[in-house]
């Protein structure tokens, strides 16, 4: 999610400078994917893109949420905006006219508020600035308010045009077969009984927690609205959002689970915002709160925390964290068993409603570990009294591999996927959508490729093998190698039959770091050159002449591949392989080089064949 530094500073004015902030976040909270410098109306801002993971999506997908966390983490002042929301003046509209009916337990809470006589118009500059800083479009003052509040406190809000709602209330229910809805973006949805919807007595008005419908859309002519602040079951929202292909900012928050306790302050925030706009007459809030969460407590022992982290944590350190994070706590005393030890006893805390990630002792280990910083944990090499056994499968693989390597075969690995087989892979991103039934097909291709590259490899023949899994259709481990153009393939067990697996894991060159050189991706050209020299001339001499004149695009050679003597003369034949890292070489270019080499050889009085 994107966070505006300036917006955060409304709540944590003593925030660190941005660079330090990025580090603090990375080491104690979450990954900062990007920090971008932006200018809005001559005001500079820094936009942090922070990767909030599912365990903290309950409380951190908002500026207030992040600011609260940072205030606790850095032990700096947090300015609580909820204390300053403007309260709407009481009206004489009498009893609330809005009726809310919840007909599914997948809706845990529904708060609705009618606001009459509002004036739709542009939003104040500061609202537009806030929204644009996090790449949200400004639409009109009411829609913007709902959007802004969501990014501010984390609770999604939806607004309906009251005059487009039939009857006098809203029903939260599961959709019926055959029902449909056109979204605000004009997408037509065919609803299923798995979709939770907001409806009136005639139509579906919204896909709960995801997107509103066009029927009750708030537009430039809207005079009266219903504000919705609700809480929906995360699994239901997630399934519907996926099914209809509608991932929205609202659905993201609901599917990661929000506490329904954010409802009241959120409704106060948006009401206060509209009051600031100077618009609207507010009816009383209707609050159908069917599933109020129980107060949660969590007990943990100091010893357990230290044991998990491998770091001795003191009472003082823990209490400091509990205080900074506003966890109401009660220490429980050192038990008789622990008397005299430094770390005995622990704490029972009341978990703030928004911290849905804190349920068990281990969650507190993570909380304390990350706040202290994992750099404080010093690495140790553990000694466990465990006697490892030899893994028979791996022993066979190593034995088979070594046997083939010793017989001159080289190892390849090919793809487990191929174009035909018995086990079909569904929805594959490639056209190879079957699991291989043998190693043969892959090995054949590898053989072909390597045969073409014989000059580059400096080999006379290709001998390759692979050890890998195939599906026949049961999963099995096979060994395959070539004998000329024929492929021999067997089950690993059969290949290793009759051997005594004296297994000792000795890696080839433990600790040495061989160098790797990437090869050019352009075609190569092979040239041979043979020359008659007087008998006593060594091949080394000829080699040097060729090498010095062959230029810098030689990838192999000059390699002596033939020698024979006749009378008092010796013939040496060399092979050179040319290849460029930058382009495809032409025959003409190479001919020129070979010409040069010939001339040079002739200058010694040698006869080029």
């Amino acid at each position, binding site marked *: 999610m994107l966070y505006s530094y300036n917006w955060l500073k409304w709540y944590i004015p003593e925030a660190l400078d941005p660079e330090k902030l990025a580090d603090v976040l990375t080491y104690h909270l979450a990954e900062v994917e990007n920090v971008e410098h932006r200018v809005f109306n001559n005001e500079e801002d820094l936009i942090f893109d922070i990767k909030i993971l599912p*365990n903290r999506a309950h409380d951190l997908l908002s500026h207030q949420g992040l600011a609260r966390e940072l205030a606790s983490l850095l032990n700096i002042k947090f300015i609580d905006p909820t204390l300053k929301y403007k309260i709407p003046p009481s009206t004489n509209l009498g009893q609330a006219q809005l009726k809310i009916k919840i007909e599914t337990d997948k809706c845990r809470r529904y708060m609705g508020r009618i606001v009459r006589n509002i004036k739709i118009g542009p939003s104040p500059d500061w609202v537009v600035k806030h929204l644009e800083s996090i790449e949200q479009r400004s639409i009109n003052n009411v829609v913007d308010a709902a959007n802004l509040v969501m990014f501010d406190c984390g609770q999604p809000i939806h607004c309906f045009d009251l005059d487009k709602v039939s009857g006098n209330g809203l029903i939260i229910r599961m959709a019926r077969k055959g029902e449909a809805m056109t979204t605000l973006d004009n997408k037509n949805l065919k609803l299923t009984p798995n979709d939770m919807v907001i409806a009136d007595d005639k139509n579906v008005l919204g896909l709960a927690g995801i997107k509103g419908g066009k029927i009750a859309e708030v537009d430039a002519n809207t005079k009266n609205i219903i504000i919705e602040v609700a809480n929906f079951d995360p699994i239901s929202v997630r399934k519907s959002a996926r099914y209809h292909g509608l991932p929205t900012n609202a659905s993201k928050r609901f599917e990661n689970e929000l506490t329904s306790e954010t409802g009241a302050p959120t409704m106060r925030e948006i009401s206060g915002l509209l009051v600031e706009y100077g618009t609207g007459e507010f009816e009383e809030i209707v609050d159908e709160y069917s599933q109020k969460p129980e107060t949660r407590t969590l007990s943990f022992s100091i010893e357990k925390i230290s044991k998990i982290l*491998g770091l001795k944590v003191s009472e003082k350190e823990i209490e400091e964290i509990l205080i900074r994070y506003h966890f109401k706590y009660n220490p429980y005393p050192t038990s008789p068993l622990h008397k005299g030890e430094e770390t005995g006893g622990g704490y029972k805390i009341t978990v703030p409603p928004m911290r849905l990630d804190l349920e068990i002792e281990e969650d507190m280990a993570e909380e304390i570990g990350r706040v202290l910083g994992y750099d404080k944990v010093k690495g140790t090499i553990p000694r*466990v009294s465990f006697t490892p056994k030899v893994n028979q499968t791996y022993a066979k693989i190593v034995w088979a591999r070594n046997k083939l*390597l010793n017989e001159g075969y080289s190892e390849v690995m090919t793809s487990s996927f191929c174009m035909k087989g018995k086990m079909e892979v569904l929805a594959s991103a490639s056209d190879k959508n079957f699991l291989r039934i043998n190693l043969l097909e892959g*090995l054949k291709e*590898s053989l072909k490729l390597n045969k073409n590259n014989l000059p580059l490899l400096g080999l006379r023949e290709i001998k390759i093998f692979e050890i890998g899994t195939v599906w026949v259709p049961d999963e099995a481990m096979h060994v395959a190698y070539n004998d000329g153009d024929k492929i021999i393939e067997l089950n690993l067990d059969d290949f290793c039959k009759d051997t005594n697996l004296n297994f000792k894991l000795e890696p080839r060159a433990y600790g040495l770091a061989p160098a790797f050189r990437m090869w050019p991706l352009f075609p190569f050209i092979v040239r041979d050159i043979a020359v008659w020299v007087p008998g006593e001339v060594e091949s080394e001499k000829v080699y040097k002449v060729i090498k010095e004149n062959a230029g810098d695009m030689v990838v192999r050679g000059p390699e002596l591949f033939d020698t024979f003597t006749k009378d008092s003369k010796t013939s040496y034949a060399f092979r050179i392989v040319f290849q460029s890292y930058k382009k495809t070489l032409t025959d003409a270019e190479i001919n020129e080089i070979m010409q040069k080499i010939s001339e040079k050889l002739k200058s010694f009085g040698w006869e080029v064949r």
Partner: protein
Amino acid sequence: MDELKQGTIHPLSFLAEEAYKVFTDMGFEIATGPELESEWYNFDVLNVSKDHPARDMQDTFIIKGEKEKVLRTHTTSVTGRAVEQANKDGRMPCAFISIGKVFRNEATDATHEMQFYQIDGAMVGENISVADMKGVLTHFYKKMLGEEIEIEFRPSFFPFTEPSIEVFAKFKGKWLEMGGSGMLHPNVLRNLRIDPKKFQGFAFGHGFDRIAMLKWGIPDIRLFYQGDLRLNQF
């Protein structure tokens, strides 16, 4: 006269032997397991609920007609099975290491392949902690990538660990993400029929091809699976 020359080994096999030696020297046992795995060992055992986004079938390969089976997306299924069996056999504490092929259904490019290798380890005992995990992983990466390597632990989230940690290594001046790790979540231990009040331990699962690519400057992960002998330079 052609002497019988030794064949050349695939770089990943070469590195796997080195990696296994580092861990077996620390007392880990090598574990292997099926590539076509049950959903139970690939997801459910690991506290990845049926509604968790990680279960989305976009990245996971499923096979027609093989319900409740997936091509394993990590080798944590192997170490999970091994730890469960060790507990059954009364061989606790225990430590397992596995290097195996894993599968992800995504478009391929220089750093992404549909099949690649993962190195996965777990150590479970009465006192195994985050400090032990740091020691083990630091030692491992120093052996793989050189003594100058530095290791950092950053906060993260995985359903199967608590605390969850993303491991970073400083290599040639840059901090690189190596993979996830953490203390096994008590739900995972319970799923493996292990009493979380008695035992605790860590687990990690890191990309193995990646280590080879960093170590040797191999530019493209797809090179490992093209069957091209020019790859075998060791």
